[in-house]
């Protein structure tokens, strides 16, 4: 067993970090919220960089890579609140396997795909022109009309979609749909991991600098212990994300439990991190100018995506009990 990233993954993370921190930032997330500016780096840039299309086969113009590789990139995207999410790319790559034309469209950017779940609103509906959804067990595809909503987190591109004329793609697509959703949960959790670990860094940095009553606030246990709890949660989330991504690639039997666990842990960890870091920053943390609320918005939005954390914990429990009965 070697449960650690390989050098190849670390190199990939470095490259993605450079690219994403040059092209996206909390400041960009703020102006998307303020002025309705587009999210950064945006679909076209993400595709051009090759990061969004890692899991699309080489034959269709993608990177032919693994979910773990995409998760490593997604963590870096989460750190800087990059958009659009890598989740739709990951899900579509699974849903469209055996559909080389559409996959190629996804990879060259001529199709801007979003996936519709039962629960609206749709992640990155804004800017999408092609929608995939499950209807009575059949995977269907079609154009749609998007109505934007007033966003809590503008980087998530949430909108309501009215589907137009659809084409049936795959009958009896439930298993594939479930797999795509689990891969999507894994990538969403990886983005949450990046956001939470960036928050932790912000909180720790500030706790070392800010002094009250003649000492750095990080020397007070009430502050120190809060940050340690975030650290522990972030490290556990990291382990669960890696496990889920590895399972997606190598152990499909473990993916349902691993993806549900990662999703649930991401929702609670990112929320804990955001709430904690606002508290640690005092009044500054509550201002529009500070980055904390942008991550807080992520937390408050992401927890609902791909099923909320309550549903994910329930799924973990059901899977665990099912496993135990066997």
């Amino acid at each position, binding site marked *: *067993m070697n449960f650690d990233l390989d050098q190849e993954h670390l190199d990939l993370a470095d490259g993605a970090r450079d690219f994403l921190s040059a092209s996206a930032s909390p400041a960009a997330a703020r102006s998307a919220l303020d002025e309705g500016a587009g999210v950064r780096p945006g679909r076209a840039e993400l595709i051009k960089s090759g990061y969004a299309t890692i899991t699309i086969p080489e034959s269709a113009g993608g990177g032919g890579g693994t979910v773990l590789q995409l998760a490593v990139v997604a963590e870096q995207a989460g750190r800087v609140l990059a958009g659009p999410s890598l989740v739709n790319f990951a899900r579509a790559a699974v849903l469209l396997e055996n559909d080389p034309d559409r996959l190629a469209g996804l990879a060259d950017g001529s199709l801007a795909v979003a996936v519709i779940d039962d629960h609206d609103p749709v992640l990155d509906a804004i800017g999408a022109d092609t929608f995939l959804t499950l209807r009575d067990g059949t995977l269907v595809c079609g154009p749609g009309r998007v109505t934007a909503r007033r966003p809590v987190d503008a980087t998530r591109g949430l909108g309501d979609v009215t589907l137009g004329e659809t084409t049936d793609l795959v009958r009896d697509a439930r298993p594939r749909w479930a797999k795509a959703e689990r891969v999507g949960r894994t990538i969403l959790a990886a983005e949450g991991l990046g956001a939470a670990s960036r928050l932790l860094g912000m909180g720790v940095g500030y706790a070392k600098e800010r002094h009250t009553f003649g*000492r750095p606030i990080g*020397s007070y246990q009430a502050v*120190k212990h809060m940050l340690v709890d975030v650290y522990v949660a972030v490290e556990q989330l990291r382990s669960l994300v890696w496990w889920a991504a590895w399972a997606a690639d190598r152990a499909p039997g473990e993916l349902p439990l691993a993806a549900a666990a990662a999703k*649930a842990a991401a929702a609670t960890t990112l929320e804990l991190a955001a709430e904690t870091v606002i508290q640690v920053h005092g009044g500054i943390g509550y201002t529009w100018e500070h980055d904390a609320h942008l991550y807080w918005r992520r937390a408050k939005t992401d927890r609902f995506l791909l099923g909320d954390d309550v549903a994910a914990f329930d799924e*973990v*429990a059901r899977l*665990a009990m099912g*496993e*135990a009965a066997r």
Partner: protein
Amino acid sequence: MDFDDTPDEAAWRAEVRSFLDRHPSAPEQPRAWQAILYDAGFVGVTWPVEAGGRGGTPMQQAIVDQETARHGLPPLINLIGIGMCGPTVIVHGSDSQKQRYLKRLLRADDLWCQLFSEPSAGSDLAALRTRAVRDGDGWRISGQKVWTTLAHLADFGILLTRTDPDVPKHRGLTMFVVDMKAPGVTVRPLRQMNGDAHFNEVFFDDVRIPDEERLGDVGDGWRVALTTLMSERLSLGGGGTSIGPKPEAVARHVAAHIGALPEDRQVLARQELGRGYVAALGARYTGYRQLSKLSRGELPGPEASAGKLSGTRSARDLTDLAVRVLGPDAATADAAWQDMQALLPGMAIAGGSDQVLRNIIGERVLGLPAEPRADKGVTFRESIR
């Protein structure tokens, strides 16, 4: 990244399994069981060969632990010796101490205990008062230890004492190996809240220890103790070991009882199981990451404390759920879960309380500033005034 056994690990697992298949049950006598396992080469796997070990990897040790648990066989009796005392002797002991003690410790010919905590020195361990005074070619020890696990059975202990009260408190300490059967040692068992009596008060009344039983230099006891505490951290919280019940066992138990609960209670029980389970899996896979690092030869760092911190929490939550799904009956019934429930509060104290572990992680891992201390730069004598 890879969860599969390497070919070496697979071969090792097969070796362990085939041995355990031939020993489906352990002898009643826990020392005898440890001796059997040692003679087969499965105790002290990571210890150096000169110390009586196998010179193996932490992963090999983890495989032994996994397989013994899978076969439903009991854990070893001499865990404090193996996890804490032995590693300290390996690093700081003289050649003759190593010769005398280590192999016998691994075979459970001798049981060991760790005599650190005192009534006025638990979290603040360096505040201890047990005195060691020079006496010819040896030392005389007087004082009291407390919470000493296994002292009532132990043959030897590692004993942290104060040899110089007139220097700052961390500098006046010295470590010894003490013979628990020596004249002047009195062990009085303490009953813990789960009803068992595994830990003890230990009184030292003018106990003589020859100088050759000193472990490390005079005044260097704190550094020696840090070796013990580092090993303790790892054996309690790191390397994929788990505290409390296996989450799978809790899931099985909840599955068996949840149907009898009212609908709304079932929903709550599933939420709690989900939360506890995710936390336990998070701790487990974080442990695997540490194990991977250790197997590459990296040293256990302060981050190993996180495993104990989160592990005790999720163990308590899951155990509480296991008790609660039994309904009001649980107020009197099901000894196994009740026992576990009454054991776990101690785990959040033993080997460093939750608060102390958070201080360690906050300061040593996150680099947050330490708290100001009232005892800094003053001698021990002054600090207790």
